[in-house]
């Protein structure tokens, strides 16, 4: 391990400082008292049981970045990558920039950013496996790749792009604050490598020598209210009113008309026509498109079946009247959900660690979602057995079986929507403004209602039609929920677009992408949605019956499925996180896509993962 050298230079040594009691967010800087149970323990770094003697060991530390000085020489990033032995496609610290002005009154503001070891580490809260710990020592937020199963949720919630999902290795890793160096009294490797007097490190709220600001924000940096990051800035040199990014994010940063106030993220509108963007519709999150849609459909379909029979007394939905259709339908639902769960597991970097998803029920919506779905799945399973194969329970009194059947049915009916509630909560991410809207609820519950009911309807209308019976009544009932779901979805979309436009920033930039890069696809989806509403209304009002009517319903189902798939895919690809600006090549999404498309990425030294799926 790195040891203090005899001739270590001052710039690399942590100074002793007297910080204030509280940080700028009102939290104590001293994380635990010296006599606390958490204190005076070894960090056990690589099995070393010694305890560091840094006098400020239990105070929150953080990076200090003087943006006026950064020259984008990459020394910090490189020192970090060298120390942590990172492959080219990963970086715990990255330098991006924004620029503005007109030649020669041009200015570039470079921003070097790693993990900010936040007061409110959203990564720690979000992680379903509890791979994260915020240490009492230095306030370091550390992540353990050996616990992580590579779901990547922390990379969604972090506003600074600090956790790094390595799709090759199948796990996340991130900045470790060089706690090994801190224990030796040395500043982190990146700070010690800085060649421009830009990057520094110490107890939070203390200024390095020769610096006079302790700002919590600079242009291009996300809203610090999201996580209360432990980084402080200096940025004194005046900048042009408008700053742009060299990467492909359709964002710029602008002050108000008078050139005053903080820089705000705004949409950088490109003069682009509406495109289909179909090739860009696929993403790493494809399994989630299928997983969410299936789960919502299965929950909705079961609710339609169970409530239709149990509450509204549609006999055609009961096992007595449909002794083959009901069992097949129930087992199909179970099979669909099993498939969806397998798909979501395969989406993990390390699928064999799937059982760790329940580790963080206390904080993580992912854990809760998985738990919710597991409960629903099991309730549905037991209900299915009790309903379809009561013979295996013949020891038990018949009444008991009926009560149990009813209990598990109701339990699944409750657990399903509850699971979907947590599924919605997953997308409540401040760092992802496009998702951070109640439209997620209208969309997910809308899918539950429309697709679930329509699926149940299609199956049992088919059964009825096969018997030569009328299914009008059944479809009249189910079309109410189908329409409710579709309208809910549509209303959500309208408000979503309106609100995001109003809020501006990354959300509005996502909308801009939606209207341009995916413009034609987006319109087609909306037409599909509208046509579905019209088709369902026409079919139900016209009262068509028999196979002729059935084919109408079937086509409507196909249209709805296509619409949902496209809509959900858009939901995933359109999100623009509040991350830091990238550079022209490094951390530039469009260059990465280009490198993958053209084959440049096949050279490992290009630093772009060739295959992200």
């Amino acid at each position, binding site marked *: 391990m790195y040891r203090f050298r005899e001739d270590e230079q001052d710039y690399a040594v942590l100074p002793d400082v007297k910080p204030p009691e509280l940080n700028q967010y009102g939290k104590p800087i001293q994380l635990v008292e010296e006599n606390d149970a958490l204190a005076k323990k070894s960090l056990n*770094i690589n099995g070393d049981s010694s305890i560091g003697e840094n006098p400020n060991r239990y105070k929150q530390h953080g990076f200090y970045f003087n943006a006026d000085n950064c020259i984008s020489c990459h020394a910090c990033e490189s*020192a970090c990558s060298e120390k942590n032995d990172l492959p080219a496609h990963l970086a715990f610290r990255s330098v991006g920039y924004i620029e503005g002005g007109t030649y020669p009154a*041009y200015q570039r503001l470079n921003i070097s950013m790693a993990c900010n070891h936040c007061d409110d580490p959203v990564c720690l809260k979000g992680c379903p496996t509890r791979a994260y710990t915020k240490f009492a020592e230095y306030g370091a937020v550390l992540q353990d790749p050996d616990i992580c199963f590579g779901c990547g949720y922390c990379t969604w919630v972090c506003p600074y792009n600090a956790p790094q999902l390595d799709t090759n290795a199948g796990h996340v890793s991130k900045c470790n604050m060089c*706690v090994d160096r801190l224990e030796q009294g040395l500043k982190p490797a990146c700070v010690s490598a800085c060649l*421009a007097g830009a990057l520094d490190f110490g107890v939070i709220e203390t200024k390095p020598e020769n610096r006079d600001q302790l700002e919590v924000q600079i242009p291009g940096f996300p809203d610090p209210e999201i996580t209360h990051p432990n980084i402080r800035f200096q940025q004194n040199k005046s900048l042009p009113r408008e700053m742009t990014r*060299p990467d492909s994010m359709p964002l710029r940063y602008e002050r108000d008309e008078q050139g005053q106030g903080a820089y705000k993220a705004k949409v950088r509108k490109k003069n682009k026509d509406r495109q289909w963007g179909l090739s860009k519709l696929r993403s790493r999150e494809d399994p989630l498109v299928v997983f969410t849609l299936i789960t919502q459909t299965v929950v909705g379909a079961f609710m339609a079946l169970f409530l239709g029979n149990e509450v509204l007394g549609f006999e055609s939905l009961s096992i007595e009247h449909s002794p083959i259709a009901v069992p097949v339908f129930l087992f199909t639902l179970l099979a669909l959900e099993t498939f969806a769960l397998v798909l979501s597991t395969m989406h993990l970097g390390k699928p064999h660690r799937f059982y760790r998803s329940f580790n963080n029920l206390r904080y993580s919506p992912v854990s809760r979602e998985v738990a919710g779905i597991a409960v629903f799945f099991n309730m549905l399973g037991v209900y299915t057995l009790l309903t379809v194969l009561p013979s295996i329970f013949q020891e038990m009194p018949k009444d008991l079986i009926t009560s149990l059947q009813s209990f598990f049915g109701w339990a699944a009916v409750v657990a399903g929507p509850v699971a979907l509630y947590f599924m919605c909560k997953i997308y409540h991410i401040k760092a992802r403004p496009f998702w951070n809207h109640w439209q997620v609820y209208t969309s997910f519950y809308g899918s539950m209602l429309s697709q679930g009911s329509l699926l149940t309807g299609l199956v049992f209308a088919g059964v009825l039609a096969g018997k030569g019976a009328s299914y009008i009544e059944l479809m009249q009932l189910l079309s109410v929920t189908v329409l409710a779901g579709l309208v809910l979805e549509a209303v959500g979309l309208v408000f979503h677009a309106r609100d995001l436009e109003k809020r501006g920033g990354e959300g509005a930039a996502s909308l801009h992408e939606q209207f341009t890069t995916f413009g034609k696809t987006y319109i087609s989806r909306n037409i599909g949605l509208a046509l579905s509403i019209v088709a369902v209304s026409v079919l139900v009002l016209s009262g068509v019956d028999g196979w002729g009517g059935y084919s109408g319903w079937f086509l409507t189902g196909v249209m709805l499925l296509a619409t949902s798939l496209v809509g959900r895919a858009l939901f995933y690809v359109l999100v623009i996180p509040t991350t830091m600006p990238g*550079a022209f090549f490094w951390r*530039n999404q469009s260059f990465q896509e280009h490198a993958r498309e*053209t084959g440049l990425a096949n050279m490992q030294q*290009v630093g772009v993962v060739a295959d992200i799926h």
Partner: protein
Amino acid sequence: MLFGRKHKNPIKIVDKEVVDWKYTTCGYCSTGCSIEVGLDKTGKAVSSRGVASADVNRGKLCLKGIFEHELFYSENRGRVPLMRNQYYEDFQEAGWDQTLDRTASEIKRIQDTYGRDAFAIVSTGQIMTEEFYTLGKLARGVLGTNNYDGNTTLCMSSAVSGYKRSFGSDGPPGCYDDFEHTECLLAIGSNLPEQHPIIFWRLKQALEKRKFPVIVVDPRVTMMAQMADIHLPVTPGTDVVLLNSLAHVILDEGLQDREYIESHANGFSEYSELVKEYDPVSASRICGIDEDTIRNVARLYAKANAAMSIWTMGINQSTHGSDGVVGINNLNLITGNVGKLGGTSLSITGQCNAMGTREWSSCSGLPGYRALEHEQDRTDIANFWGIDKEFFPKKRGMFQTDIFPAIETGQIKGLWIIATNPMTSMSDTARIRKTLEKLEFLVVQDAYEDVETNEYSHVYFPAGLWAEKEGCFTNTERRVNLIRNVLPPYADSKPDLWIFNQMEKRFEQGKKITFPETAEGVFEELRQLSKGRMLDYSGMSYDKIEKQRGIQWPCTEGDETGNARLYTDGKFQHEDQKAKLIPLPFVDNNERPDDGYPFWLNSGRVVEHFHTRTRTGKLGNLNKFSPTPYMEMNPDAASELGVEHGSYARLISRRGDAVVMVQLTQRVAPNMVFIPFHFHECVNRLSLGLLDPHSRQPAYKQCSVKIEPVADQSAAAVRNLAARSF
């Protein structure tokens, strides 16, 4: 406060388990940073770190140095010698004896048939001083070809020429410590943050302690320009006009150091006569800097108690490169800023051992800053080597940039290229291809088999790189520093010194001369040959160099340390010990933008790459920052042409065309584009490279191009990819 868990898990952090740190000096640029390479217990090089006690870098390294240990294991290193009859045939693997014999016999055949000078050697700034000296001995003392030069002609020969013209000798007179003392810094065509990040850090450290004005002359708004107090976005190729005009103001306002000029310089009257023509009003119309700014800068510079100038390729790579250097020297002479604390003319060199080749390779003459033109020098070296002094020519032969045209027209038939890559680095790639294919025999000696020039070779010698060998580099402040051998050369590659020594054994003339086997043995010869000269090494030894983390020459026998500055006594190397003030009339001979080719094409370095990327293009953690060629273009100009950010565009010059990715930025003027020079099949397909009359250095940075959008973007992507084997 949220901790996530009550019981801490143990922490795992990468531990490279270094058991031994070996002392070396960085092999990229000329800053001369001391690096320790960490070896683990299996002997693998796993880490690099700056030496904290080294004065140059004080523990710091730039990103290239940080990953330098990865070079030992980089792709496409030369494994074994290769051979073929014609360049268009496939290579066959061969042994060292076989390839050395073939090369020796081809050299003999060519020299016997066409004359000694028909075989040329083009070397580098990359190998060790001891190797340069040995190569010089081989070229001058054994083969006796006068067409022997280094690629330093592409980067530093204007500085050499300018120093010689002004001060009577090469040798940068200042040092990095001058930043700590200066009161005004003028940086002309030098972008430290990108090209010499550690020197920038030294400057920044000095500025943190004590603020002084920084003036940057650069047509591009580099980070250096952005941090300057005054940025002069000069019109390309007109630095001499600006320098003359600064001198005009100084003399006009009587701000010059009269005493210094009188005691230490000649030629004042002719100089001041010429400078009169360059009043700031007339000058402003040529160089694009307004008259007030010219006056302001001139006054600032002249009134400072100590002022210094630094420059790099912005000056050197110009048709007025040598004149530009002289112009800077003139400015410092008339203000008395030579050889004093904080007052100097400091050229910032490009390659790790460009200085070593200048001092000891005999490219431009004979070792130890000796000249072929001086009889005494010829006699001294002939006697020292034990050969007849008449074996030496009496005048320097061709520069690299003249050797290639001589191959083109058939005067030169054979060529030995050592650690340089003209296929990528020389102007007008098409012409270089045409030239190389005319050679009857080309031997390429390089650490990398895929160095593009190897495409035309008949024999390839795989050489060891950097710390696979032992020896010294001299940095840009004349500091001789040591590279200890860290690892044996890769596979069957060999140290350059070994290759030269083996070659010598194959010639009759070689038997007359002693060629020491070890680098340290060669160093002993350098000590002896330098005794009493300006570049005195006699007080140095390997151990002493390592202990002091580099020693600045002169260091005379008996001296504890070296000397930080030259000319502190005001005595120069011209015969009368005075410096020369040289009038610099300006003729604009550049290919300026016109209606047909409306953009200036500028080129330069980026921090993550070195030269033609044979090394940095293979290390992902460097290459990823610019993995493919691009140009910086002004968005206003681009929108008129319909060229888009992130797309490919085509540039066309009077030489050829190139396809690059477009990065739109206001960093460049609307009538200029900038392309990093590192990429194969890129900027040098376009560049003109007019030669400086004194230094024969090409003007890479000034020519004109037109630009058109590319309709078929995927075809452009395919074309770009095809040119990228690394």
